[in-house]
């Protein structure tokens, strides 16, 4: 894995005694589209607001290229481009004037760079029109344009597919992959829609109730499946104890009257050997695979909106 350009460490937000974001830690390396998946109210926007310094952290740190957002805000922000919720622009200005406005905050964004970004997002035909006449999709694109003007290392898009039609989502995915593969930037995309995440992301973090539940890779079909091994075995509690002690890297749990291990088929011989040696009776071993969707549904108790 490459160097992580964005690091979250124990990020926590407490509002009115309630933990809205609870001890989040994860890394995003350069060149990756990282999905931030969770149902509405999971705390995605709140986390993003903390990353970009709009709200304070109750606890924890965020590092962008090793620079602390809390301690060196201005330096850290030179490496971030972001859209938080809807990209609201100055409606009485033209699209171009809006871009000039945001470009001026950074040092070294040339006129050519603005034109280049306008072209990249296909806005050249209407860039000199007032933003109040833009459609939602165009505003989204202008928002992305404003966020990448200064060639950030980290691009954060909060629910960028909101209000986009399928064609718009495909376009978004195309230029996001261009940005990550060609410019090597890390992109963080939040969404409550699993299907969209599967289209766009290399990895997803699933978050619910402010807690990080799981981080999974989606890079190829096999990896997107979480494997588990179910064992029907005698003397459940002591078998559970034995396996947790012998396989520190495998998560073991008792489901009904069976043992469930979060691992794949390759480990079955090892596991059986240990159980047989300790004189347990084995009635059956099944390997099964769970798709991200099943897992997401299970984790979020079926609240997911697809």
């Amino acid at each position, binding site marked *: 894995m490459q160097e992580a350009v964005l690091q979250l460490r124990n990020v926590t937000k407490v509002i009115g005694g309630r933990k809205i974001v609870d001890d989040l830690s994860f890394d995003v390396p350069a060149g990756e589209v990282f999905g931030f998946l969770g149902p509405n109210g999971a705390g995605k926007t709140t986390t993003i607001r903390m990353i970009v310094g709009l709200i304070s952290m109750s606890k924890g740190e965020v590092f962008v290229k090793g620079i602390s957002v809390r301690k060196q805000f201005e330096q850290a922000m030179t490496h971030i481009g972001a859209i938080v919720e809807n990209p609201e622009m100055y409606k009485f200005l033209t699209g171009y004037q809006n871009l000039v406005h945001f470009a*001026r905050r950074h040092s070294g964004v040339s006129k050519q760079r603005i034109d280049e970004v306008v072209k990249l997002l296909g806005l050249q035909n209407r860039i000199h029109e007032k933003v109040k006449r833009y459609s939602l999709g165009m505003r989204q694109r202008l*928002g992305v344009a404003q966020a990448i003007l200064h060639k950030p290392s980290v691009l954060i898009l909060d629910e960028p597919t909101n209000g986009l039609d399928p064609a718009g989502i495909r376009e978004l995915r195309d230029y996001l992959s261009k940005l990550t593969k060609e410019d090597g930037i890390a992109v963080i995309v939040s969404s409550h829609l699993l299907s969209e995440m599967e289209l766009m992301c290399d990895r997803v973090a699933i978050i619910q109730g402010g807690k990080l539940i799981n981080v999974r890779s989606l890079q190829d079909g096999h990896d997107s499946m979480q494997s588990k091994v179910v064992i029907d075995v005698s003397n459940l509690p002591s078998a559970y104890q034995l396996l947790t002690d012998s396989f520190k890297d495998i998560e073991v749990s008792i489901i009904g009257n069976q043992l469930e291990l979060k691992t794949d088929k390759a480990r079955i011989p090892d596991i059986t050997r240990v159980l047989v040696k300790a004189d347990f009776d084995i009635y059956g071993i099944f390997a099964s695979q769970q798709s991200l969707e099943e897992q997401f549904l299970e984790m979020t108790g079926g609240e997911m909106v697809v």
Partner: protein
Amino acid sequence: MSSLKHLIQNENMKIYRRPRTWLMIGFLVLALALMSGLMKWDEIRYGDDNWKQNMTQQTERLQKDLVDNKDTNPEYTNYLVDEIKLNEYYLANDINPHEQSLWDYVNNSAMLILLITILTVIVAADMIAAEFSWGTIKLLLVGPASRTKIMLSKYIATMGFALLLLIISFVVAFIAGAILQGFSGVSVPELSIGADGLIHESSKFITSLQKYGYSIVSLLMYVTMAFMISAAFRSSTMAIAFSLLFMLVGNSLTAIFSSYEWVKYLLFANIDLTQYLDGATPIRPDMTLGFSVMILAAYYLLFQLVSWILFTRRDVAA
């Protein structure tokens, strides 16, 4: 990191690209033109070719008044004595005090600084609050500029707008005066009676500047107050409403409670520094110019500190 200069450019762009701003400027110019026109009309209507005769009659009337009121009111008799002295000086030196010069137009335009204050308060009220209501605050703050810098750029841009209006008002009044009166009266002096009982001549240009200077004090205070309320409540309406309310009721409030000592610590009691000019009486006898300047400075710092804390320390969850 953002440079302050570029941030101010951004704020200026957001002020002057709004049609509303040009409406305000147009309104100010219209008000100035109207005022100048009224002054000219007034002069023509009461124009007197035989002003010397009128003034002699007036002086006689004043003298009779003086004799009648000898023991009643020393303040009034002082006033009469001064007026008579001035009239005699005018007659002796062939100066018609009612002949308007272009400086009178500039001088009168200082009254419109109240309008300039209101217009700038409207702009100041929007500086922070509108970014919240437009939702643009999120993009504005997510950048390599600290909130302190962004606030400073907004404050400077607001003051720049006030300065622009002041210059427009001065220049437009000067031009209107020059068109309506010509340049003949440019060097006619302003006459006044000092504490020493003697007649002083002073430049009308300096008098105009002074008038502007005194009015700018209240402009500065009320605009800074509006800016603070805009940062505190994130609501333009509230910022405008409170600032205008204080502007309107401030004076009557101080007048009503002027018998209490604590009145002197109120912003409104100190905001009008002309109360320390010759011939004027301060709201309370124990107030001095130095005292008022200190109180104003304290309020100013308080407003700035409150805006700064509320803008830089609070979560932005809009």
